[in-house]
């Protein structure tokens, strides 16, 4: 298998799906001439031309609506937000148009479109550019919310998202673009809604998604050195959520830590814990512990940012807590 970056994996997915289906086009800020703010769309303008790789003005609400309209009449738009922090400006189109069109129209107007872009904190970008939106977006019915954590998952899930007849909100990790991983040379897709057991262990489950899968793996490596073996359940998709995968893992380990990038209140972890208490009540040997961002806007200063973010050390501490170690 080839080892490529998360960025290139996404690029391959876009390229292959645009080759496969001429109804697919990419639209957003700086996607064409500039080759993508994060270079995800590198080379696509040259290959597919300006009708299919479309630079927009800085006008998120507007071009998100363009995607909705184009999807209504049969195209399959991929709408790129330079970051989901800017995607918030388009939330009306996501929430009120894309997510409701099929239902409000009594099934007449499917919305085969993808909204995608980087999500979560990078480094020292402070409050307005360092937010995780999966719990906001997963709250609404009528969409799917996908948060791949590896190049393999990014490619396979983006291809599925583009082929899906529903609105898919695709959240990439801003800090993941340069990470590398094995990606098959041959064609493959990954089903939306299926978790992936990224590490097997029998002492504790770490349930996580997106960029935090990487953090969970770092924690798992360090815990292994102390003979603590954890399951890492990477949800990959947070709507729909793979409850069976959570259940299977917790039934085996009897303990769980839920790790997410966003804030605590009404977070993804709150939902995971709810599933665990309902489905695995008799399996549990300890209360579930959550790891998440501190309940503050992201600060700029390096030391404060470190304190605010969930990381491997905090995850390790949480695992030890649910195992009643130290």
């Amino acid at each position, binding site marked *: 298998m080839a080892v490529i970056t998360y960025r290139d994996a996404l690029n391959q997915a876009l390229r292959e799906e645009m080759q496969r289906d001429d109804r697919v086009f990419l639209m957003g800020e700086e996607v064409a001439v500039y080759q993508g703010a994060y270079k995800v769309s590198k080379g696509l303008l040259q290959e597919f031309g300006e009708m299919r790789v479309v630079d927009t003005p800085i006008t998120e609400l507007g071009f998100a609506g363009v995607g909705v309209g184009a999807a209504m009449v049969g195209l399959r738009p991929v709408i790129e937000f330079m970051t989901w922090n800017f995607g918030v400006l388009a939330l009306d189109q996501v929430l009120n148009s894309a997510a409701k069109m099929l239902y409000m129209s009594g099934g007449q107007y499917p919305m085969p479109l993808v909204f995608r872009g980087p999500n979560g904190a990078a480094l020292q970008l402070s409050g307005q550019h360092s937010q995780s939106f999966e719990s906001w977006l997963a709250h609404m019915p009528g969409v799917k919310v996908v948060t791949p954590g590896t190049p393999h998952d990014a490619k396979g899930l983006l291809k599925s998202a583009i082929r899906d007849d529903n609105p898919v909100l695709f959240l990439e990790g801003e800090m993941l673009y340069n990470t590398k991983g094995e990606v098959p040379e041959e*064609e*493959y897709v990954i*089903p939306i809604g299926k978790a992936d057991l990224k590490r097997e262990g029998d002492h504790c489950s770490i349930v996580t998604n997106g960029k935090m899968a990487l953090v969970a793996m770092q924690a798992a490596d360090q815990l292994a050195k102390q003979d603590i073996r954890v399951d890492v359940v990477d949800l990959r998709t947070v709507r729909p959520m793979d409850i069976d995968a959570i259940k299977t893992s917790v039934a085996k380990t009897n303990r769980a830590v839920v790790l997410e990038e966003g804030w605590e209140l009404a977070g993804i972890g709150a939902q995971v814990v709810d599933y665990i208490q309902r489905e695995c009540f008799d399996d549990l040997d300890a209360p579930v512990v959550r790891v998440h961002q501190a309940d503050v806007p992201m600060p700029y200063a390096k030391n404060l940012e470190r304190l605010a973010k969930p990381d491997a050390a905090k995850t390790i501490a949480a695992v030890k807590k649910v195992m009643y170690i130290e």
Partner: protein
Amino acid sequence: MGTGSGRGRVKNIDLLHSMLLQRRFEERCAEAYALGKIGGFCHLYIGQEAVSTGSLSVLRADDYVITTYRDHGQAIARGITPRAVMAELFGKIDGCSRGKGGSMHLFDRNVNFLGGHGIVGAHVPIATGVGFAIKYRGGDQVCVCFMGESVVNTGAFHEALNMAGLWKLPVVYVIENNRYGMGTALERASAIHDIYERGAAYNMTRTQCDGQDVFAVQRTMQEAVDRARKESAPTLVEVRTYRFMGHSMSDAVSGTYRSKAELEEWQKRDPIVLLRMHMQEKKELTDEQLQKLDEKIKAEVQDAIDFADKSPEPPAEALWEDVLVDTTSDATAEAVAAD
């Protein structure tokens, strides 16, 4: 009153039928609302019928129409049956949106009616997207997007028209300037009052016309639609009109934000009366013919009400239908095989 468009495609009697049908339909809507048969918000279009009828009379069947929540008139003028619209208003399974949308969200794929939309301004970028898709496919269809004048103050309007002007998309944006956004007069909401002039900011052809004169609307719209179809260029049309009813069913028709005298002044220019008088002057319509037409339309509306009354409520399982397209079959099989 101007004269017929001269295009000869739609007869004056058909224009009258379309406008009178909307009027009689909505008079019965007000009644049904009072009886509790129609729930939620209900925004009547009475007084503005020349805009829907005039505009849609110049379209082809494969063109697209999208509008706001004040959508009954346009839905009927576009050809959704009164039965399907009334059943939708009654929340019944035979409604054009299967009872899931209601008054504000009428949809019908068969006539390319892309919905009534409930968030002011939000459908305008969607129309731009439809225009983009038409151009992408190299087609010669046109998208007509209706909106009230208060929409021009939203960011969505600005963003949508800028892209349409920038990319030269085949969309006709029709502002139905009925003078009030709910209870706020245009002059209290917009820094300029000739709002079609906003098109200048988008390098867009712009024009305005009398919305009580169906022929004026037809002529103006024919030019705009031709421009979209032949030159793939958008137009901003301001149609000056007036709603004879309140914003919705909850406000007084006059007395708070507008005077009775103003309302009465506009009612003198009832678009249906103007067309009827024109036709009578031209000897195209006798009193007897008019009476017959009106009776026929009233019967058609009564039939719609009877149909809606009899149509069943959506079954309980409909609650869970159409949240998402079911993609579990092929896509998953393909995915599992490859993963």
